[in-house]
């Protein structure tokens, strides 16, 4: 199974219409990857669908970089008993 990081990058690339190779862990979703506010919401929804988890909106939307998204999603998966 692909890693959490691979899956986060794949979802981010699809939603923001980027090439996966363009996405770096340290990059900020809005400042570096160009995510607009609606796309941030789409990213949250797509991460939830990809991992089968429910994320609290405020916490999820406070995640700003790809690396912190990987960390946050890993934590939520653990809390909700989702194997990754």
């Amino acid at each position, binding site marked *: 199974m692909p890693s959490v990081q691979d899956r986060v990058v794949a979802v981010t690339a699809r939603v923001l219409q980027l090439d996966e190779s363009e996405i770096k862990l340290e990059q900020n979703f809005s400042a570096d990857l160009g995510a607009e*506010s*609606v796309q941030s*919401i*789409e990213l*949250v*929804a*797509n991460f*939830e*669908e*990809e991992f089968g988890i429910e994320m*609290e*909106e*405020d916490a999820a*939307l406070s995640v700003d970089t790809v690396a912190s998204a990987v960390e946050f999603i890993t934590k939520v998966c653990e809390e909700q008993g989702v194997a990754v």
Partner: protein
Amino acid sequence: MRLILFDRPSPKRFHFDPLALSRPIWDLRIGMSSLGDKMIAKTGASDVACFVPDYMAEVHRETAECPVNDASKLAGDDLLLVHGRVRASGFDVETTGPSQCGLDADGEVLWARIAQADLAKLNADSIDALLASVKEALPKAEGETAAWNYTWELVLENPDQLTEDIRAAGRSGIEGSVEEPRAIRGSDKDIYVARGAVVHPLVVMDAEHGPIYIDEDAEIHPFTRIEGPCYIGKKSILLGAKCREGNSIGPMCRIGGEVEESIIHGYSNKYHDGFLGHAYVGEWVNLGALTTNSDLKNDYSNVGVSLDGGKAIDTGSTKVGALIGDHTKTSIGTLFNTGAYVGAMCLISGTGKPLPKFIPSFAWFLEGVVTKGFGKRKLYETAAIVASRRGRQWTAAQQTMWDDIFQITAGPRGEALKKGRRVLAGR
């Protein structure tokens, strides 16, 4: 005699959602006033108390003119208990007399008259206990008690109720100002412009088919056409509106565009062009420019309304527009389908197509699907800003109540969110 208005959780309560999520049923409006006002007037009660769902009690206390959820009011006098659904116009129960009660076809207590001497035989520890013991112990009155069953009934009967209410108010003439040139159709005696109200030049007031009542400090801007029967609430502003027959508006609303046979609660805005017909709109709603609802299907069949995202209920009418809950905001160009249920605290972004007929409360409807958006905290921040612009306050009690409503409405919203995620993932 003490009048006790009650509206406790029951299987039929959701028939009045999304409007009744944040208010007791008797605070719904028809004609010039609320159902509760009408019942108080009908019974002539001067001593009134009320019982609402617990989660909204504290907020209701902020505005209610009577004790709320105070069990001590269930003693010390003859009582007349009346459910918020009961129609005042058909309620002919004598306020004094032997104890008895009236039930609906499903056995729900719609009213009970309890002589003080009989209270000791009943369990009056709480309103729910009292209603249960009333149902068990008191004689049942014969005949049916007329009650409201769905919100759209209020909309459909609004024109007739407006005519009745305005006639009963017995006001006529110009106490405010109507600037020249004025254009009045019908009889002057069917028009009332209250003190402080200002009607600008070039406003048409057409009372040929029904009376017009413009309440205190309302302001009607040029090129507005008001067709009776119609009630414009205190401090409301009409901005070049095509205000067709059967509207109850206000107070403190800002209304433009075309509005027909609709009920709009206070502090709501529909500033710009766009059509609203046979709609019921809650408080603090903002409809963006060109927001429009359909109120008639192309095949002229009865309109169905889904109150929970499931099977639609046949309204029995070919004309039903949108039901829009409190604090909902729409973007420019939002198009609501016929008989749309639009929850409370929603943020709706139009798609250029008619939106789904059911949008759950607290939905951020974006890119054609229900999402979590930026969450309820952001919606509360907006509600606080909007309230402050009108000199009102968003209180801690309101936030607590809306947190409870968030939980109450979680089921249908969860289903819609799942569907939305699937759609977004498939794009």
